[in-house]
């Protein structure tokens, strides 16, 4: 334990380092009740860059994983109706557990960080995607399937060439709801060290700084809108024979 008092000259800050502050000269962001401080927002908007990218990453990866799993189990359960109620119940359980609780249930196993967040977020999307896929497949008219069978299609061909294409509107609708919900919930990832826009809402004194919260909120809503519209467009692109359904 060295005595380190013989170092280079002690630092002294320049005289212009200090600022006089009185109640009336406080800037907008120093006042606790100010709903929005435009100047601060303008000067500090780059603070939101990395959290936005983190947020996008969380959402896209979680939804892709969730979709892959839910789609796969829906296909598996398609002709095995005995599987459907338990699968619906299981995905329902994962949906019902509040995400923040889910994070901390996973914590002992997967630790802090964005991986835990991704697992929980993906689990949340399973029910909506599974249910919508099943709904879409169930809505295919029996007559259409019979016609296909009459033309000599195998079960597998019917699934991929008849049932799934007709189920696309429901599936994409489910995907749309899943993405929008995940964009909102991913803000909670801050609690488990997963980054994202939640850091500008809860971390580092932002909880009491409405300007930062509003900006984060605006970005979240904008993101949701962009994905919502993109998926509506995708839905139309994939099903040119019918108007896109409003979910």
């Amino acid at each position, binding site marked *: 334990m060295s005595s380190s008092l013989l170092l280079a000259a002690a630092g002294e800050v320049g005289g212009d380092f200090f600022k006089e502050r009185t109640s009336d000269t406080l800037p907008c962001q120093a006042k606790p009740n100010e709903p929005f401080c435009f100047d601060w927002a303008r000067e500090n908007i780059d603070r939101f860059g990395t959290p936005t990218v983190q947020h996008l990453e969380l959402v896209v990866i979680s939804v892709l994983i969730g979709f892959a799993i839910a789609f796969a189990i829906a296909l598996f359960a398609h002709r095995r109706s005995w599987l459907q109620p338990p699968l619906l119940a299981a995905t329902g359980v994962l949906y019902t557990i509040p995400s923040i*609780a*889910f994070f*901390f249930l996973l*914590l*002992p196993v997967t630790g802090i960080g964005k991986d835990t967040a991704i697992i929980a977020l993906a689990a949340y999307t399973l029910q909506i995607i599974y249910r919508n896929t099943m709904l879409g497949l169930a809505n295919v008219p029996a007559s259409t399937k019979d016609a296909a069978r009459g033309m000599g299609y195998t079960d597998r061909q019917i699934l991929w060439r008849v049932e799934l294409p007709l189920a696309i509107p429901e599936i994409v609708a489910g995907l749309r709801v899943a993405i929008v919900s995940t964009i*909102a919930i991913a*803000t909670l990832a*801050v609690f488990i060290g997963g980054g994202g826009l939640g850091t500008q809402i809860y971390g580092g004194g932002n*909880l009491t700084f409405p300007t930062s*919260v509003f900006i984060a909120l605006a970005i979240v809503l904008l993101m949701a809108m962009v994905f919502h519209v993109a998926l509506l467009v995708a839905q139309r692109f994939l099903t040119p024979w019918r108007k896109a359904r409003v979910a």
Partner: protein
Amino acid sequence: MSALQLPLGSFGGAIEFIFSEQTSNVTGGAKVGGLEQAVELALKQLEVTALALAVALVLALPLGLYLGHKGKGELVLVGLANAGRALPELALIALVAALIGIGLVPVTLALAVLGIPPIISNAYVGVRQVDPAAVEAARGMGMGELAIIRKVELPLAISTVMGGIRGATIAILATATIAPLAGVETLGDYIINASIYGDDGRLAGAILVALLALSLEGLLALLQRRLTSDGLKVKTV
């Protein structure tokens, strides 16, 4: 084998935390944990959930039924439903805490806001899906519009309406978990203020919140089934 033991050990510690009071690992050696505290926080969470749900029902249900009956406002309601899903609860709680205030009343209002979109849009959709013939028949029998909503459309739409109420309840309960940020101490306190309760307490909180949500959802599902008259019981997907 040992990779599995670590999580199991944590869960053991959490279970113990729920049932027996322990000395906090924070200074002062105050007591935390135990069944009494858990029940108290759980009841608080249910209380604020119930209050918010009541407010949301009063505001959203009659309006949703009426709009469905009239067939008006579909675009707005669809937009509202989508917006409701996109609204991050953390931002809502933070804004309420900073701009309105902390405590039961502001938090209840914030939670009610979350509950309105599912209730109103499901009420609308449920009524729209009622067989028009039934409505015509009732009108032919001389029933007034309000009576038609109450005695014909609502019972026929009850399954969908209950679905909306279920969704609203779960969304409200989930957000009530982070209500401690705005001064309302619910089970989420174990998670958010883990510095007082310790890692065991935090895991205990997560377990209790999950159990509470699942129980409530189960009860509501049962209620939904009881309320749906047998003639309408479609095999739900």
